[in-house]
């Protein structure tokens, strides 16, 4: 039997999108909140436009990651707890159908979110990276997919939704602190820099700063993007390993 089926993957993606469509408030929050947050940053750094150019750009890439991580870990936990996951495993659905179903559906949402936020940032808040705005969205979506993959993985270690939410500070916060946004990575103590080197978000920030500073896509940016993609695939594979058809 095939590991993945086009029909089942498409059906699963469609089902997840339908679930989102019935939850208009969540969709509204997902699409609007990042723009509002950026607007807040814009006025905070009113006196220092250069800071906003840097922080705003980085936020554009990080927002989808954090949100998708949270949403995915809770949705997947629900799937485990409500018994639907167990039921799905008695059907022809493969583990990868389910994981990639979530990956694809939330990537579409992330792309929408990223595009809206990027357009607002560029046209209303004068965010003007040297590179192409489309590339910013690409990095944002890649980072969102990474968030989905990490969320799927972490949901395996949470028994309740409270625990799932607690994984956000555990997984996301250290990455955000060490990614080079607050302190440039080169200025960190050696051991912190070593930790930062193995956290995927560091590469997302690096990629965004490359786009901010160079008119054309740089080799470093492509390398960073590949690392983010690789980390996402790795997390998805680990996530698949945590899904068990048989449970005690």
């Amino acid at each position, binding site marked *: 039997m095939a590991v993945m089926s086009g029909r089942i993957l498409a059906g699963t993606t*469609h089902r997840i999108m339908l*679930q989102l469509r019935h939850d208009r408030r969540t969709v509204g929050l997902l699409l609007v909140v990042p723009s509002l947050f950026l607007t807040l940053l814009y006025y905070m750094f009113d006196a220092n436009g250069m800071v906003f150019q840097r922080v705003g750009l980085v936020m554009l890439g990080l927002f989808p990651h954090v949100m998708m991580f949270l949403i995915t870990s809770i949705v997947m936990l629900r799937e485990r707890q409500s018994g*639907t996951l167990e039921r799905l495993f008695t059907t022809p*659905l493969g583990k990868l159908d389910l994981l990639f179903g979530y990956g694809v559906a939330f990537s579409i949402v992330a792309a929408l979110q990223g595009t809206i936020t990027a357009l607002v940032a560029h046209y209303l808040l004068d965010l003007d990276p040297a590179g192409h705005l489309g590339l910013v969205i690409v990095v944002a979506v890649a980072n969102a997919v990474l968030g989905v993959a990490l969320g799927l993985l972490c949901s395996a270690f949470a028994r309740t939704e409270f625990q799932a939410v607690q994984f956000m500070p555990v997984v996301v916060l250290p990455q955000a602190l060490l990614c080079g946004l607050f302190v440039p990575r080169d200025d960190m103590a050696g051991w912190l820099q070593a930790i930062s080197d193995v956290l995927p978000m560091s590469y997302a920030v690096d990629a965004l700063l490359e786009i901010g500073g160079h008119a054309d896509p740089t080799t470093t940016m492509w390398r960073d993007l590949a690392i983010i993609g690789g980390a996402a695939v790795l997390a998805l594979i680990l996530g698949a390993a945590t899904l068990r058809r048989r449970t005690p």
Partner: protein
Amino acid sequence: MGKSAITVDQLVVHRGRREVLHGLTAQVARGSVTGLLGSSGSGKTTLLRAIVGVQVVHSGSVTVLGHPAGSPKLRRRVGYLTQSPSIYPDLTVRENVRYFATLYGRGDDAVTEALKTVGLADAERQLVSTLSGGQRSRASLACALVGQPDVLILDEPTVGQDPVLRDELWTKFRELARAGTTLVISSHVMDEAEHCDRLLLIRDGYLIADDSPAAIKSATGADNLDTAFLSMIRARQAEASLEVG
């Protein structure tokens, strides 16, 4: 081999540190309705989970349609209704059933038919979260029926349903069996047991009766199944205390 759809052989299952099924052996004939009876906590659901292949088994084996339970070939041919409705509350009834139809490779006709069978054709556009408990479990049942599987494992499909609907569902189950589907249906309502070709009574993880409703009644001299089962349980307890004493 040909006649038996499900063969359970010396099945031992542990949940946590407890052994909940103690070397259970039973057979289920093709195209029959088998009732699985027992109080809550007796091991009914565990046995059903083992048959659909989502239960970790300690020892023994379960064979379904000639394949080990849970093998990929079976997933298209076995339908499972869990005890508490496992469907998506944030989708409409029809969207739920259509999703499961997609998984089994069935079309829209199968969706409509399944909805009609469970009496939810009128509520198909309603969100599952707005349904009553009984409607919800029927929506969940429709998701199992829509795959038109050869084997249907139903964990308490009629709980909380109104008497007329319950009767209609049993008529449908009989119809499916006549057409060749093998059904295993758990229940703790004894009057439903009369609809079954064969009954398996489980108590504390042991199979204490495995026969047709008529044979069980005549063996115990009781005129209804409730009394029959009670006397079987008593007889067994007496036996056990003799062994200990």
